[in-house]
């Protein structure tokens, strides 16, 4: 245990540890100085930070581009919601079903793709196709509401972590805890054999294999870990929004939104997905607010803003915001 802790901090400068502590403290205290609106924006930012971190495991670490992560969010959201609404099983237990279902989908996609050497663009297309098929499936799955949606009862009550019923501030701290745990988990992965192997596969699959890495197995592991992590975002989604529509939850737009954070923050980095999600969510909301305030209520302005951010990053900061920022702040590791 202490060895694991030591390894978590290995190569991290004290300055970086302090900075990380400050960020975490700020996030812990943020609700105290936020109104309801600001809190809702922060919750969304944390949601994308977490989901982006999960997606980053597959693409940022292992180099497998998924454009269908809404699939894992969706099936997990439905699984947890169905367990709760139909069978009265609270999400603390239902989430295990959600994790299992999402991992099973991930395993099937991974198996088909990696067994038959589907990679690159074709792999991305396969992930989109699976999300689409599943959406169509849920559209016709009338037992779970079909295209008309599936709903949880909205209850105004004190925070209950067992059933995930409660005020927004409870969801804020749940999401913050998940984001922090995902961050630590990913740090642990990158400081282990698995992380080294994923990076090697991302950089050059043939060379990785020649060094004794079972590429198929480690790619499967990346998909399964990533889909399992993503599933918890889905559980959160179901209980926070209380309504699920196949049309929305499985949509490709959702998959894309989810991957913008890590791309803009810095693919394959640990802090990039968090930074990217906050920058995007907070700035996009600010832009929308300012426009509304000045009398321009333009639909779709957020998407345009996302597009602009993506263009700026791809052209001027191909590694994302975080790597250069980290250097600027003098937070680079010691060796």
């Amino acid at each position, binding site marked *: 245990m202490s060895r694991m802790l030591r390894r978590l901090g290995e190569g991290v400068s004290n300055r970086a540890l302090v900075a990380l502590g400050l960020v975490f403290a700020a996030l812990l205290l943020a609700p105290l100085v936020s109104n309801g609106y600001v809190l809702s924006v922060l919750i969304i930012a944390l949601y994308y930070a977490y989901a982006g971190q999960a997606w980053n495991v597959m693409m940022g670490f292992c180099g497998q581009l998924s454009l269908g992560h809404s699939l894992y969010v969706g099936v997990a959201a439905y699984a947890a919601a169905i367990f709760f609404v139909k069978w009265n099983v609270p999400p603390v237990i239902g989430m295990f079903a959600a994790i299992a279902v999402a991992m099973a989908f991930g395993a099937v996609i991974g198996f088909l793709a990696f067994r038959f050497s589907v990679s690159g663009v074709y792999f991305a297309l396969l992930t989109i196709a699976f999300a689409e098929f599943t959406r169509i499936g849920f559209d016709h799955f009338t037992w779970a509401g079909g295209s008309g949606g599936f709903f949880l009862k909205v209850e105004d009550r004190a925070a209950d972590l067992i059933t995930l019923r409660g005020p927004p501030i409870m969801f804020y701290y749940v999401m913050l805890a998940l984001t922090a745990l995902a961050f630590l988990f990913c740090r642990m992965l990158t400081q282990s054999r698995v992380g080294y192997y994923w990076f090697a596969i991302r*950089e050059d699959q043939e060379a990785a294999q020649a060094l004794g890495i079972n590429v198929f197995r480690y790619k499967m592991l990346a998909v399964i870990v990533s889909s399992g992590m993503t599933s918890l975002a889905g559980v959160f989604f179901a209980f926070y929004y209380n309504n699920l529509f196949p049309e929305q939850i499985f949509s490709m737009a959702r998959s894309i939104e989810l991957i913008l954070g890590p791309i803009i923050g810095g693919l394959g980095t640990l802090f990039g997905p968090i930074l990217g999600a906050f920058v995007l969510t907070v700035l996009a909301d600010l832009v929308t607010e300012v426009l509304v305030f000045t009398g321009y209520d333009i639909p779709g302005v957020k998407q345009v803003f996302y597009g602009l951010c993506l263009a700026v990053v791809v052209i001027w900061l191909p590694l994302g915001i975080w790597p250069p920022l980290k250097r600027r702040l003098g937070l680079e590791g010691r060796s």
Partner: protein
Amino acid sequence: MTALLEVRGLSKSFRGLRAVSQVSFDVPQGEIVALIGPNGAGKTTCFNMIAGAFPPSDGTVRLGGRDITGLRADQICRAGIGRTFQIVKPFAGLTVHENVTVGALNAFADLADARAKAAEVLQLLGLWAKRDQPASSLTLPDRKRLEVARALGTGPQLLLLDEVMAGLRPTETDQMVAVFRQLNEKTGLTILLIEHVMRAVMALARRIVVLHHGETIAMGDPETVVRDPAVLDVYLGAEAL
């Protein structure tokens, strides 16, 4: 005693093109053997079949008596064969130290041990000073050294080197030769090398196998092979030895 590596009747056709045809040779335990021949002779193709990059069309490969024909590359690495790529394949986004650590994880369960082993190999190959640079920043000779370092990190019984001296200056070649000599003498590492730099071949190899158009045209000790008329005709003559 059986040889560490036994290649028998190895053949490969690429859509009709017979790249390697009925090649057989042995690499005895603890020896250094060179595989030479003109461009396109089928040397790299032989390596790829031995190392499991693709299966042979025909023939068998045995390592220490065990049939390893057609195993996947990672299985063959774990069986004890480390290989370099003629067209280098560094993990560009990783540091030099991380590159070699990936290889060393094949031999060590613990990451700290693998990093220590990698450090040792980097010092041996003169890459230690560059350990924290991304591999993408290395010059071609350094990338070749990195290929060797990564393969050595896996802790192989048999090391396959595909033109790792190409592009090195003569003094650098001599340094690399000295490293392989030392490894061979001190640790008993067996080496099969493909090399055009005859200076290195003559300094290292106890046996030479010559390929031409995918076939073995000569085999034996260096002195005999370099005087072989067939070899002089198709290969060494052209190199103006």
